[in-house]
Structure formats: structure tokens, C-alpha cells
């Protein structure tokens, strides 16, 4: 078991490993030991291995662990595992969506874009949301439930708003970014759209689970 965790944690960053050690109640003892070993060997940390506990205590810990794991909702898991990686995901997708919008505005007079302006924005927005979740799932090896996904989407929208605001100061880019007034309105519109999108996504997931065909 220790070997399994050593192999699984070998690419984790130092901060990720420290977080595992600091919240050892949530992890199996072998996982914590593996994190400590990698910290000591790879990052020259001098973390002592935990003392061997009596079988009874170990059982209690395991029972606690199971209870915690079962009781934890996805939003708790989301909060616990939230790190710079998620910030980078949301911000990179927000910059990508901003660039997409700037391109749309640049070519707004082209016939194909002019005739389907709203669709281009909506489809781009949905793709950005999906990318956000795909990146999260690849990095955390698990998906989120409705609330956690919505919370992560709001982080993405907040980054998008900040980028739009900052981009407005770039010379001659004001026409390519949303104005402050638009920004406030767009934030609420996007927040509502996201809520609807996530409800739809949850419904689709529920249907797929019902037919035992969970493709995502």
C-alpha cells in the first residue's frame, strides 16, 4: 500500500505534500507516510514519521476516517483541495475567453459573426465552462457536484471580470473589453446562465447515472 502511495505522490508539489501531512486525519496512514517520505527524500524536509499506533487506536482512526469521508460533501472536498492550480485554471480559461471575445469584437462586422453574434458568445462561454471543469477533473482526478462546480464557475467569472477591467486600461483596447457598466450587468447575466447550465449538466449526469452510462 505504501508503494502505491509513493508512486502516486511522486509528482506532487511540496505544498501538496505538506497539506496531506497537515490534514492527516483525512488520509490513510500509508498515504501520510508516503507524503512524509517524499518530502524528506525529494525536498530535504526533516519531518519525523508518526509513531506506530496501537491497533485499537488505528482502528478508531480508520473508523473516523471513513466517517469523515462519507460525511464530506463535494463542496468540502473542493474547499480542502483548493490550491493555486485551480486559480491558474480559472485565470487561464478567463484569459482565453477574453481573447476569444476580443477576436469576436475585432471581426464583429464579418457576415458570419454579425448574423450569429449571441450564439458565438454563448457557445464560447459554455466551452470555457466545460474546459474549466475538464482541467479540474484531470488535475484532481474527480469531478464536483452542482454547488462546487457553480462555485468554481463563479471564480472563473470573477477572473474574467478582473481581466476585462484591467484590459480596458491597455491602449486602444477599451472598445475590445466590456465597460464597467456592462461588466456589472454581464456578471449577473453570466452568473444566472452558469446556474442554468450547471442545473442542465447535473440533470444530464443524473440521467446518465440512471442508465449506468457515466461517460463524464
Amino acid at each position: 500500500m505504501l508503494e502505491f502511495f509513493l508512486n502516486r505522490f511522486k509528482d506532487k508539489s511540496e505544498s501538496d505534500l505538506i497539506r496531506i501531512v497537515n490534514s492527516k486525519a483525512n488520509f490513510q496512514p500509508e498515504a501520510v507516510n508516503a507524503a512524509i517520505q517524499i518530502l524528506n527524500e525529494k525536498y530535504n524536509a526533516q519531518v519525523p514519521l508518526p509513531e506506530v499506533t496501537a491497533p485499537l487506536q488505528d482502528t478508531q482512526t480508520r473508523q473516523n476516517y471513513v466517517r469523515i469521508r462519507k460525511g464530506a460533501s463535494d463542496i468540502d472536498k473542493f474547499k480542502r483541495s483548493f490550491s493555486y492550480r485551480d486559480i491558474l485554471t480559472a485565470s487561464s480559461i478567463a484569459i482565453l475567453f477574453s481573447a476569444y471575445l476580443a477576436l469576436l469584437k475585432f471581426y464583429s462586422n464579418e457576415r458570419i459573426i454579425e448574423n450569429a453574434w449571441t450564439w458565438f458568445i454563448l457557445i464560447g462561454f459554455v466551452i470555457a465552462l466545460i474546459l474549466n471543469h475538464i482541467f479540474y477533473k484531470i488535475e484532481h482526478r474527480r469531478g464536483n457536484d452542482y454547488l462546487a462546480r457553480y462555485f468554481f464557475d463563479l471564480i472563473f467569472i470573477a477572473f474574467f471580470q478582473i481581466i476585462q477591467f484591467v484590459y480596458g486600461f491597455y491602449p486602444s483596447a477599451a472598445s475590445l473589453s466590456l465597460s464597467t457598466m456592462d461588466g456589472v450587468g454581464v456578471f449577473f447575466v453570466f452568473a444566472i446562465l452558469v446556474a442554468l447550465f450547471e442545473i442542465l449538466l447535473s440533470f444530464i449526469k443524473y440521467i446518465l447515472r440512471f442508465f449506468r452510462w457515466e461517460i463524464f
Partner: protein
Amino acid sequence: MGNILKVKIALIIFSLAILILIPLLETNFYAPVTYKKWQQLIWDDFQGIAKPFTGWGAGISSGIQVEWDSTAEKFKAYAVQDNQSSWRRKVLNDPDYVLNHEQYHFNITEIHARILNLYLDSIQQQGNTNYRDKLITLKFKLDRMQDAYDGESDHGANWGMQRRWEYKVDSMLHELSDEKGKLTDYFSGAEIFFPTRPDLYKQNKVGFRPSRIYSLIDYGVSLTLFQSRFEEHEKFNLNYEIDNFFHEKSLQILSRTSVNTTYDFEVLVDSKDTTDRIVSTRWIYHN
């Protein structure tokens, strides 16, 4: 994990490149700008970089600029064109037609500059110089009108709608000029609106009915005010005279509608010529 980080960094670099490059393209890499006040455009006024992969031949950037006129001691609004944000493709099928389409974008901006000037004059007489709200409102209306112009004329590809918009824009410009767009014939007292100043022809040969004709051939149509002198006793023969007019011009009458009016006589006649072109006429007799 490492791969995902690389993908995210690549996305950020790619997106930032787009965000930085677009304003550079739009401003011709921040080349010095010349703002041309409203007048006839020439292709040299289009110095910007053509949009890559665009389907259109040219694009114009125009706006309203408010300046302090030290001679008149008041604020004045001007329609201006930005030469570095206006662009054209090197090869164009019909450069004159494309330039004319862009000119009317500039004319639409001039209409709104004139509206702002009317507003500036009215508020400055009251000692007020706060025009910002009005400018914002006008900017919004200007954008909507530019969009409508491009939308209805299909960026100039719809020849008929392009002509219609030219008529509309010229009429508005004429209405907002000192002449107010209304032409009054001082002999007959007839008042008529022409989008631009028409030509005047006079008929006063002996043996012919004296007449004065204002004519404007533009926008793919001919707009004419034909005035002729009738004696009081001739007014009962007006329908006969109208029939004669159409007969002499080889026009076939399609419809004839009498109108209840304040004039002594008024009738609308639609006809067509030998090439099926429609001629719509309105006949009025008034003492």
C-alpha cells in the same frame, strides 16, 4: 500534471498574444493619427492595416470630436475620420462603389455631429456647457444607425438599399444644413424637399405652356418637380391635360387616385414606360 500546467501556460501566452496584437492591428502599431474633418474621402485616407481574413473590402473609423472654437467662443462638434484605423484591401472589384459606401458611414457621423451642434448652441445660449450626457446618447444612436446602414444595405452589397440609404442620409444632412432641405419656388410658391440641390430648367418659348422644372437624377431614380401655368378656366380640363402628358411621354397609366385635399385639385397617378420603369406622379392645382 506537468502537462496540464504546460497547457495552461501555453493558453495564457496564446491569449495574451491575441489581446496585445488586436489593438496593435487596429491602430496600425500606434502610427501617428490624422483626424480628417468631414469632407469627401479619398483612398489615401485609409492607411490602416487590412483585417486578416476579412470578407470586406474596406473599413472606416469615424467619430465625433468636440473642440473649443476660439473665434466664435463656443464649443463645436465635428465628424472626424481616423486614417490609421480606417483600412482597405489592396485589390478591390469596384473601388469607387466601396469608397462611396464608406463615405456614407462618414456622412452618418456628420449627421450626429450636426445634431450635437444644435444642442451645443441651445445650451450655450443658456450659459451651460455640459454636453457629456448628450454625447453619450448620440454616440449610442450613431452606432445603432451605422449598424442599421450596414445591416440593411448588406455592407453595400444590396444596391437598391444602398441607394435608399444614400437618399435618406443626404436628406437628413440637407435638413440639418442652413438650407433646411426645403426648396421654395418663388413663382408658384411650391415647397418641396430634395435630398440635395436639384437642377432647374425653364420653358418659356412662345407657343408652349410656360413651365419650370426642378430635377434631380440620383440614387437610381429621377426626382422632378414640374410646374406649369394654367388659367382659371382651364382647371376643368386638368384630367384631359394629364392624359395628354402621359400620352406624349409614351407612358402607360397603371392607376389613378383622386385625393381629398385642401388644394383645388389633387390626383396621384402611377404609370410605367416602355422599359417597365415605374413613374409615380402627384398632380396638384392650386390658385
